[in-house]
């Protein structure tokens, strides 16, 4: 470990670190624009100049590896003068339009110009102007502001894995662009906005809507996929203005997907802001009292055996627990949280978790994807797989549709026959998987949400056992969920009780008239036409498919409007926080169920959120610990059976349209029309 002296202080750092990192280690801040922890080093902005003994000129500390006996100075007059000069050059062509720039107030250039810049410009010649580029509906460009740090290029090339951005021309005429005008085809493109140290890349939907200092920031989590990415929701008054990522090395590092970032405008549109009751075939506005008594009447009229409940993809643990408790009291075993019909085995927790953990992907050396397209189902899992691939010595195989995941994937087959061959041990891939040091398997909902899902789960279990995916300190068996609610629902047992019907059974029952009342807890992704003549109660926040069919609508709160628990695909329990209040008459979901229980006369035994959480933690102690993924004991799951030979397909046909919030979002609609509408069936990412 080299030892060096920085400003007279001796410091020992790991070999291979840079001078800039060594300075950071002892708390010396070095100004920078192009350097970023997670990107490759470029060394082109020159802002991080420091003095090094025996070097005739200042060195770029971000690109200089540490060496034994180096003597570095960061606080001399020479360093200050050098940085002053660099800043003056950077500002030569910068428009200094901070008052109308969205980056103003959170701009690296603005901040560092305060610290290292001159108080006036000596430049009197013409400034250059650069035409703006059209990078699609998410990223707005003001290329005249660009200082050519190339962070966006490095992000696109390395992390997003789409080589589409580059530097065109040279010298005075250099521009960042795509050469051929096109929208960025990445699910992570929004992160470039965060990376851009100036106002060159801005958020298009957020453009000119707020200034950063007006915003109230709330740290919460995302529910658009099953990862529970950590986010910071910025609101002004009663409106969510934007969504930014928050650092969590275990889940999303410092990135978020474009859906997480840009679907927030869906929170303002198509909202259910008051109760409705269907009268003479038409939904009519009603008071809470009317809506609850109509609901209570229908439920008590039908009786325990003929009422059923389906929890949707965005339901929180609290509301599902309350609804389950209510159904238990009413004597109905018919409840299910797997609205896509996934044949998951709720009795073995390890059988439905992403056991390796997302960060654990980085230790793996062979990965088998079964019926999943991680790029669309969990964009940040795909980013981790790519990160692992870039380090080398990592092979990815797939059973399912051909995929463009931004790294090479070897397709072994299309469907269950290949899976069966591997499970039976006759396939040459068995050797590859068994010989791997840290093999992993990712089982997607595309393989499980089908009639033979249980048999497929059993075959996957057999592969996990024969190829020793589970060994000391390593569990390579993973189920990748796409719904934020799913693991929480399975954890608390929101699945059919003894003799209970699953989702397809309930829909059959509703069609035939056997199931008289169906309670949809935010369930929109079911075939509502099969609800027949059943009395449908919809509790949720958006006027989507479920609300359209409903006889009573109980308006609930979206994920930014309540404090609620979600369990991510790794089994990590996290909590959302209330950023804004639910609109109009809408209420937090658990309290709606609690109020309904009172109307029915089967009062639930908790009066506030704290008591409900105590009840959850008592019944399911593993939900008491927040933010960790301790895993679960391994045992056998799935039921051997005949497998249908139909090929696997990803459950997501359109990355931008997966839940009621996205479907209400204009930004997501624009993305869907641009990316999915025009590229369907061409890129291979389309299931």
């Amino acid at each position, binding site marked *: 470990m080299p030892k060096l002296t920085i400003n007279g202080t001796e410091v020992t750092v790991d070999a291979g670190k840079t001078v800039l990192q060594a300075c950071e280690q002892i708390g010396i801040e070095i100004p920078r624009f192009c350097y970023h922890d997670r990107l490759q080093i470029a060394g082109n902005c020159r802002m991080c100049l420091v003095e090094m003994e025996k070097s005739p000129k200042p060195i770029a500390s971000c690109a200089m590896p540490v060496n034994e006996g180096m003597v570095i100075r960061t606080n001399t007059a020479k360093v200050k003068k050098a940085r002053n000069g660099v800043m003056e050059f950077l500002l030569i062509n910068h428009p200094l339009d901070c008052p109308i720039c969205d980056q103003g107030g959170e701009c690296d250039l603005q901040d560092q110009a305060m610290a290292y810049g001159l108080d006036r410009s000596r430049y009197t010649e013409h400034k250059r102007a650069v035409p703006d580029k059209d990078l699609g509906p998410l990223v707005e460009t003001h290329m005249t502001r660009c200082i050519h740090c190339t962070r966006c290029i490095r992000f696109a090339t390395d992390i997003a894995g789409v080589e589409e951005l580059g530097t065109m021309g040279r010298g005075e005429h250099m521009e960042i662009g795509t*050469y051929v005008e096109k929208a960025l085809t990445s699910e992570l493109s929004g992160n470039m906005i965060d990376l851009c140290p100036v106002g060159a890349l801005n958020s298009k939907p957020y453009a000119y809507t707020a200034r950063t200092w007006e915003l109230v920031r709330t740290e919460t989590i995302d529910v658009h996929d099953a990862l529970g990415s950590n986010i910071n929701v910025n609101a002004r008054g009663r409106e969510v203005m934007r969504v930014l990522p928050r650092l969590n090395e275990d889940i999303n590092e410092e990135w978020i997907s474009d859906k997480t970032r840009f679907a927030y405008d869906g929170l303002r549109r198509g909202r259910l802001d008051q109760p409705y009751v269907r009268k003479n075939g038409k939904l009519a506005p009603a008071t809470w009292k009317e809506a609850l008594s109509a609901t209570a009447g229908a439920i008590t009229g039908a009786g325990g055996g003929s009422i059923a409940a389906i929890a949707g993809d965005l339901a929180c643990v609290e509301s599902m627990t309350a609804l389950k408790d209510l159904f238990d009291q009413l004597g109905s075993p018919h409840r299910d949280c797997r609205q896509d019909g996934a044949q998951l085995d709720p009795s073995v927790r390890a059988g439905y978790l992403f056991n390796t953990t997302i960060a654990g992907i980085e230790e793996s050396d062979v990965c088998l994807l079964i019926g999943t397209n991680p790029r669309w189902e969990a964009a940040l899992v795909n980013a981790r797989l790519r990160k692992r691939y870039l380090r080398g010595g990592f092979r990815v195989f797939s059973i399912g549709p051909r995929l463009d995941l931004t790294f090479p994937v070897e397709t072994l087959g299309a469907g269950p026959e290949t899976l069966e061959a591997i499970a039976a041990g006759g396939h040459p891939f068995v050797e590859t998987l068994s010989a791997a040091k840290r093999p992993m398997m990712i089982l997607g909902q595309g393989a499980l949400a089908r009639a033979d899902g249980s048999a497929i789960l059993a075959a996957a279990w057999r592969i996990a056992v024969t190829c020793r995916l589970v060994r000391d300190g390593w569990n390579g068996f993973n189920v990748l969920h796409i719904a934020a609610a799913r693991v929480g629902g399975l954890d608390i047992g929101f699945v059919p009780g003894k003799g209970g019907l699953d989702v397809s059974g309930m829909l059959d029952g509703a069609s035939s008239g056997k199931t008289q009342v169906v309670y949809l807890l935010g369930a929109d992704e079911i075939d509502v036409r099969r609800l027949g003549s059943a009395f449908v109660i919809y509790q949720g926040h958006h006027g989507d498919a479920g609300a359209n069919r409903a006889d009573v609508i109980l308006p609930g709160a979206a994920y930014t409007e309540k404090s609620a628990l979600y369990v991510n695909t790794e089994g990590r329990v996290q909590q959302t926080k209330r950023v804004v209040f639910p609109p109009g008459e809408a209420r937090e979901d658990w309290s709606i169920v609690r109020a309904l229980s009172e109307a029915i006369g089967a009062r639930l035994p908790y009066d506030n959120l704290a008591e409900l959480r105590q009840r959850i933690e008592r019944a399911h102690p593993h939900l008491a610990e927040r933010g960790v993924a301790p895993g679960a004991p391994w045992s056998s799951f799935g039921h051997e059976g005949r497998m249908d030979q139909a090929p696997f397909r990803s459950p997501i046909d359109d990355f931008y349209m997966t839940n009621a919030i996205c479907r209400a979002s204009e930004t997501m609609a624009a993305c869907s029309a641009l990316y999915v509408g025009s590229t369907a069936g061409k890129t291979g990412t389309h299931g």
Partner: protein
Amino acid sequence: MSAPAAAPFAFTPANVEQANAIVAKYPQGKQQSALLPLLDLAQRQNDGWLPRAAMDHVAAFLGLAPIRVYEVATFYTMYNLRPIGRHHVQVCTTTPCWLRGSDQVLDACKKRLGVDVGETTPDGKFTLSEVECLAACVNAPVAWIGDDFYEDIDGASMTRILDDLAAGKQPKPGPQVKRQTSAPVSGAKTLKDA
């Protein structure tokens, strides 16, 4: 700044052979090093300029993302991204050539061709460009046409060269005055003479 659209492009069989020979000069896994010569080959095949189709073809040939090829092609001024005349007349106007009369050379070109710098004659035969130092200062002023340098030129000799090219003749490259390559103009001077 995207290039004009053009017909599809592919290397001719002879050029494929040559391209493979160029790629083979580089170690296994470093094929992208052949990018510069391959772009030159493509440009020669395509009447002196590189349409997007040609850049895409080279990208596919080397297994590179197209953007990496666009970056290189836009960086170097010797790749022409727009159609160009049959003869590309590049007159050096950097200090040594300028001191030796490059202004007269450039004026002669403008007069003879009837176009300004950066323009192509209506018949498509000539494109006139002004370039920076061609590294032949010892024979200044210099003009570069096709693969040849024309050295020690003045207005009259430049006009003659252009006349010859227009007539389909190949003017003699090198010094246009009585001089052997870069040897002194005033006759042989060696250490022996001194």
